[in-house]
């Protein structure tokens, strides 16, 4: 790739997280000149630009400078620009960050359409449902390392059980772990955090009792709750919150990366 960066530039289309548009040109001119950089003839680039402006619903603003564009419009324009030279591989860096739902749906549609023509799309995202919806293969990257990779189905199946029951306690509940593990349908029990809960932080700072959290991974979700509640009541650990999560990439991501905050 470093040997011939120009050839690579011809093959790829890049949509950065922040639209780096040519602010001295109008939307149509941005596309036209981009086509010209890639050696397209005048009629070819005019035709492609008009088609993309239509498709990305920018035709009405085609002759405006992008300064006044909303985030969604700028994003659409920068994807249209990337598609001007019909790249084999399209890189989208968090394309739907900060977009309104309509724009996001339009974006998804366009990505699917482009992908259906046999081209590759490489997309990074923080939205698990976006990855689930659009991707054939997903790599979960944490701190710069791939920690899991596969089809969405494979990845979801890699979470023990798939269902998660997330519990919060005000007292140390670790004595309960063996009992939870003994329940039918439970695959894994994890003590995930001992940090002040939102309730504790909101009250006075003096008696901040740390909150305890346990994630119970199981083949079933809701059916576990009565048994868990029974066990917790017996131990007086102060169970005060139960949260159910169905199998999703979100639980998968958290399962693989843990719960501490990421930069």
């Amino acid at each position, binding site marked *: 790739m470093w040997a011939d960066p120009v050839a690579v530039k011809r093959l790829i289309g890049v949509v950065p997280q922040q639209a780096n548009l040519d602010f001295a040109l109008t939307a149509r001119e941005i596309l036209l000149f981009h086509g010209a*950089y890639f050696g397209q003839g005048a009629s070819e680039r005019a035709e492609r630009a008009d088609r993309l402006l239509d498709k990305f619903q920018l035709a009405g603003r085609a002759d405006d400078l992008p300064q006044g564009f909303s985030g969604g419009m700028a994003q659409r324009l920068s994807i249209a620009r990337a598609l001007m030279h019909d790249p084999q591989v399209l890189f989208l860096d968090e394309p739907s960050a900060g977009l309104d739902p309509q724009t996001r749906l339009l974006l998804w549609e366009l990505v699917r359409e482009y992908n259906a023509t046999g081209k590759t799309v490489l997309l990074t995202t923080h939205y698990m449902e976006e990855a689930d919806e659009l991707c054939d293969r997903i790599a979960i990257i944490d701190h710069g390392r791939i920690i899991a990779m596969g089809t969405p189905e494979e990845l979801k199946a890699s979470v023990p059980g798939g269902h998660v029951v997330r519990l919060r306690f005000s007292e140390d509940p670790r004595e309960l772990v063996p009992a939870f593990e003994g329940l039918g349908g439970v695959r894994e029990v994890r003590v995930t955090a001992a940090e002040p809960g939102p309730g504790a932080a909101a009250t006075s700072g003096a008696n901040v009792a740390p909150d305890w959290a346990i994630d119970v991974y199981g083949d079933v979700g809701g059916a576990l709750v009565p048994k868990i509640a029974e066990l917790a009541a017996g131990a007086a650990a102060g169970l005060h919150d139960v949260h159910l999560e169905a199998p999703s990439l979100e639980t998968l991501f958290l399962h693989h990366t843990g719960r501490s905050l990421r930069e």
Partner: protein
Amino acid sequence: MSEGEKTGIASGITHRGRRARTFLALLRRDGHVARRNFPQMLVQNLLQPMMFVFVFGRVMTQSGFLPVEYKSLLLPGIMALSMMISGIQAVALTLIAEFQFTREIEDRLLAPIRIEWVAIEKVAAGMIQALVAGLVVIPMGYLLMGSGLDLSLDRALLFGLIALLVAGFAGATGLTLGSTVSQMQIGLMFTLVVAPLIFFGCVYYPWSALAEFPILQKVVLFNPLVYASEGLRAVLTPQFDHLSLVAVIGALLAFDVLLLWLGLNRFRAKAVS
């Protein structure tokens, strides 16, 4: 010739052809933007030299404070200055804006061409602007200075060479400054770098006039504007004392190469970050 060599040569040609097309498209883009901002650009580039030409070339001479010959002495200097300022501004100011947080430059860096060529295209665009800004000074002089302006326009080839070298220097300096200085430092750049260059650039006086200040006369030889002014003086107004053309061309060439090398390095470092 083997098959491999043939395709190798053919792909070399198409490769160069494609690069030329991309390069020209980038240049067309800058021309397009320049045309759109034409009135603004005109004022930015021409108002100051116009006032200078009028006040020093007309008011001061006609009122008798300066001899009529000063018109001819001043004009090549103003021309050099005008080229320098507009060339530097054309490249540096746009680059500084494009390197800002919007990273607008990336729009250009996506073009299928090595990033060095993107930088060279900027220099070329600056050179064109500098040449235009320099050439208009000649009719401006005839219009505003009144009679007594004595230019010899017969050494066209030599004049063209020097004008190109001066324009190249302006563009390359713009590239270097534009890839080095940030938005916040533009004002400082003009006070600290450009203003001293102008006043000690033999714009308003010939280099020979510094004979009374021997140390200063040596020091200003590090100022590239000196060679620009003196070079244009040598071809347009050979009646005055001037630095030798060999020294002028040699020095301008050296400054061009140095600044272009520096600018390309700075640009590369800043573009890939």
